[in-house]
C-alpha cells in the first residue's frame, strides 16, 4: 500500500539530496492531507471543544458582553425545560416506527429488485431510487398535498375503499405514520446499498442451500441476512443518527410550530429553536451535547450487540 523506498528510484532522482525519498514522500503526504487535517481541527475538533465549553456558559449571540460561567445553569435547565420532555417523546415515538421501517423497507425492496423473476429490473431500480433525489422542500410540500384531508390523493383512494378520510397531518396519532410514509418515499439510497450487498453474496451459497432443500425464507434467514448484516448494521447506525437529526420535513410542513400539540416538536427542531432562532449558544450547546451523548450511547450499544448478529467472516473488508 505504501510506497516504500524503491532503491532504483532514489538513485535516479538526485535532486533534494538532504531528504530521503521516503521522507520526501511523507512530507508530500502531509501536504495533500492538509485540507482534511485543517478541516478536522477547525470544523470538528475545535467546535466540539467549544460547544462543550459553551454548555457551561451564559452565552447569547445578542449579548456578546454578557458571557459568563453560569454554575451549570444550562444543565439544571434541562430538567426544567418544559419542551425538552415533549421533544424527546416525539423523537422516541417517531423512532419506534421509523427505525424498524428504515431497515425492513430497504431490505424488502432490495429483495424484490434482486429477484430473478422481476422483469425490467434497472427501470424499477431507477424509479424506486428517484424520490431520494427530490429536494426535501419539494418532498414536504408535495406530500403535504397528497396527504391533504379532503383533496389529497391518498384520502381519495382510502375514501373510495370505504376507509374514510383520516386527518393525517393534524391528528396527534396519525402524524407519525404520516411522517413515516414521507420518510419511506426517500428510502432509495438505503435500498440501493442493500441491493448491492445482496448482489455481492456468492451464488454458490444459494446453490448449496438449494441442493440441501432449503426454502426461500430459510435461505434469507441463514444466508442472505448474515451475508448482508454488515451493511444492515451500517444503515442502522446511520438511521439512529438520522432520527436524532430529523428536522426538515416536520419543520417545513408545520413551519416549526410543533403542531399538533408538540407532536412534531422533534429534538432537533427544539435544538434549532434554542441555538439558531434564539441564538442561545449556551443552552443550544447543552442540547447539542445531550444529543451527541445519546446518539453515541445508542451507537456504542449497537456496536456491543453487533457480535451477536453481524457477520464479518466472509473475508470482505470490514
Amino acid at each position, binding site marked *: *500500500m505504501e*510506497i*516504500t523506498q524503491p532503491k532504483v*528510484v532514489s538513485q535516479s*532522482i538526485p535532486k533534494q539530496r538532504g531528504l530521503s525519498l*521516503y521522507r520526501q514522500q*511523507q512530507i508530500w503526504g*502531509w*501536504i*495533500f*492531507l492538509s*485540507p*482534511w487535517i*485543517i478541516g*478536522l481541527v*477547525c*470544523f*470538528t475538533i475545535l*467546535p466540539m471543544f*467549544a*460547544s462543550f465549553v*459553551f454548555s457551561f456558559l451564559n452565552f447569547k449571540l445578542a449579548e456578546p458582553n454578557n458571557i459568563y460561567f453560569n454554575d451549570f445553569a444550562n444543565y439544571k435547565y434541562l430538567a426544567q425545560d418544559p419542551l425538552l420532555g415533549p421533544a424527546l417523546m416525539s423523537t422516541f415515538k417517531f423512532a419506534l416506527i421509523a427505525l424498524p421501517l428504515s431497515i425492513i423497507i430497504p431490505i424488502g425492496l432490495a429483495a*424484490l429488485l434482486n429477484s430473478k*423473476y422481476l*422483469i425490467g429490473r434497472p427501470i424499477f431500480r431507477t*424509479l424506486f*431510487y*428517484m*424520490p431520494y*433525489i427530490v*429536494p*426535501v*422542500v*419539494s418532498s414536504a*410540500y*408535495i406530500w403535504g*398535498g*397528497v396527504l391533504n384531508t379532503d*383533496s389529497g*390523493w*391518498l384520502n*381519495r383512494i382510502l375514501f373510495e375503499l370505504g376507509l374514510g378520510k383520516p386527518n393525517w397531518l393534524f391528528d396527534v396519532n396519525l402524524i407519525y405514520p404520516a411522517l413515516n410514509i414521507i420518510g419511506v*418515499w426517500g428510502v432509495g439510497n438505503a435500498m440501493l*446499498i442493500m441491493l448491492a450487498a445482496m448482489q*455481492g453474496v456468492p451464488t454458490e451459497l444459494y446453490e448449496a442451500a438449494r441442493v440441501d432443500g432449503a426454502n426461500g425464507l430459510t435461505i434469507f434467514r441463514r444466508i442472505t441476512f448474515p451475508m448482508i448484516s*454488515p451493511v444492515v448494521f*451500517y444503515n442502522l447506525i446511520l438511521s439512529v443518527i438520522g432520527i*436524532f*437529526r430529523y428536522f*426538515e420535513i416536520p419543520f417545513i410542513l408545520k413551519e416549526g410550530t410543533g403542531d399538533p400539540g408538540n407532536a412534531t416538536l422533534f429534538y*432537533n427542531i427544539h435544538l434549532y429553536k434554542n*441555538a*439558531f432562532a434564539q*441564538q442561545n449558544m449556551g443552552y443550544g450547546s447543552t442540547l*447539542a*451535547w445531550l*444529543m*451527541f451523548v445519546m446518539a453515541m450511547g445508542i*451507537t456504542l450499544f449497537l456496536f456491543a450487540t453487533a457480535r451477536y448478529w453481524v457477520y464479518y467472516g466472509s473475508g470482505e*473488508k470490514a
Partner: protein
Amino acid sequence: MATHVQHRSTIESYINTSPFYGLQLKKLAMYSTVTLFACIILMGFLMPFAYAVVTASKSEPQIKSGTVLPYTPQTFRYEGKDLPLYEVPLPDGTTQVLAGLNLKRGDNAKNEFIDPDNPSEVIIWEGNWRKLKAVEVLEIHLLENFDTVWNNRQTNFPVMLRNTFAIAVLGMIGTLLSCISVAYAFARFPIPRKRALFLILVSTIILPSQVTLVPTFGFFATIGWTGTWLPLIVPHFFANAYNVFLLRQYFLTLPKELDEAAMIDGAGPFRILVSVIIPQSLPVIVSVAIFHLVFAWNDYFMPLIYLLGKEDLLPISVGIQRFNFVYDMKPHLLQSSMLIGLIVPVLIFLFAQRFFMRGVVITGVEK
C-alpha cells in the same frame, strides 16, 4: 409389439415434456406475480409525482371544482349567464348535451334545460340533475402556471436558481480539489498512523453535526460571515468523509506502475496526480461532482440558518418556502413551484444515474 413401443414412447414423451411444461407455467406465473407486485409498489412511489404534475396543471377554477384531473366543466352562455352543460338521457333513449337553465333539488324534480343549438325551447327533464354527467374538457395549465410562478412579484425565481447554481458549483470546486487531494494522500503516501487517521475520517460520518454546528455558527456570526454564501461554500474546501472514501477506494485500484513510471520520468507527486491519477479516475470524479451538486441543490438546513433575512441571496430550497408563505392557498402554483425545485436534481440523476449509483454502492457497501 410395435403398438407397445409406440405406447411407451408416448408415455416417455409425456413424462419428458410435462414437467418442463409445468415448470414453465410456474415460471411464467412467478414472473407475472413478482412484476405485478413491483408495479403496484411503483405506483405508490410515483403517485406523489403524478399528484404534483396533475395539480400543477390545474387552473384556479379547476382546483375549486375539486375534480381529480384538470377537467373544466363546459358552459353555454345564454342571456348573460354561463349555464352548465350536461349529458341528459332523453325519454326516446338518446342522450343529448343540454344546458341547465333552472335546476331543482330532489330526485323527481322537474328541471328546465335548453338545447344550445335551439335555445328558445325549454326542455323539461325529471330526475336528480346531480346524477347527470357534466360535460368536461381536459385543459392543461401547466405552462401557464410555470409562467405565473417564474414571473411572480414576491420571490424572484431566476435569481434563486442562479444563487443555487452558484453555491452548488463553488462548493463543488472546493469538494473536488480537497477530496481528490486528501484521497490521494490516503491512497499513495506513507503517512505515519495512516490507518488511525483513516478510521477517524470514516467515523466523522456518524458524528451528529449538531454538536459542531452551534459554535461554528457562533464563529461565522462573530466574523460576520452570516448573511453571506461563505459558510455554505468555504467548509467544502476542507474535504468530507464520504467523497474522500469514494475517491480513495478508486485510487487504490489504479496500478502503481504508472505512478512509478512517471516518477522515473521525473514527475513530482503533484504532476503524477494531475497527469496520471486524475485522467484515470474521471468516472469517480464525475460521481463526486454530481453528489455535491445534488447535495448542495437540496441542502435546506445550512441556508436556513446562515441566510436568514437575506432574501436576495437565498437558494431555491429555502426561497421556495418564502414563495409558499405567499401562495399557500393556491395548490396549483405551489405544486408548480415544487416541480421547478425538483427538476434539476432529478434530471441530473436520470442522465448520470450510472455514476451516481456506483458511487452510492461503493461508499455504502465497502465500509
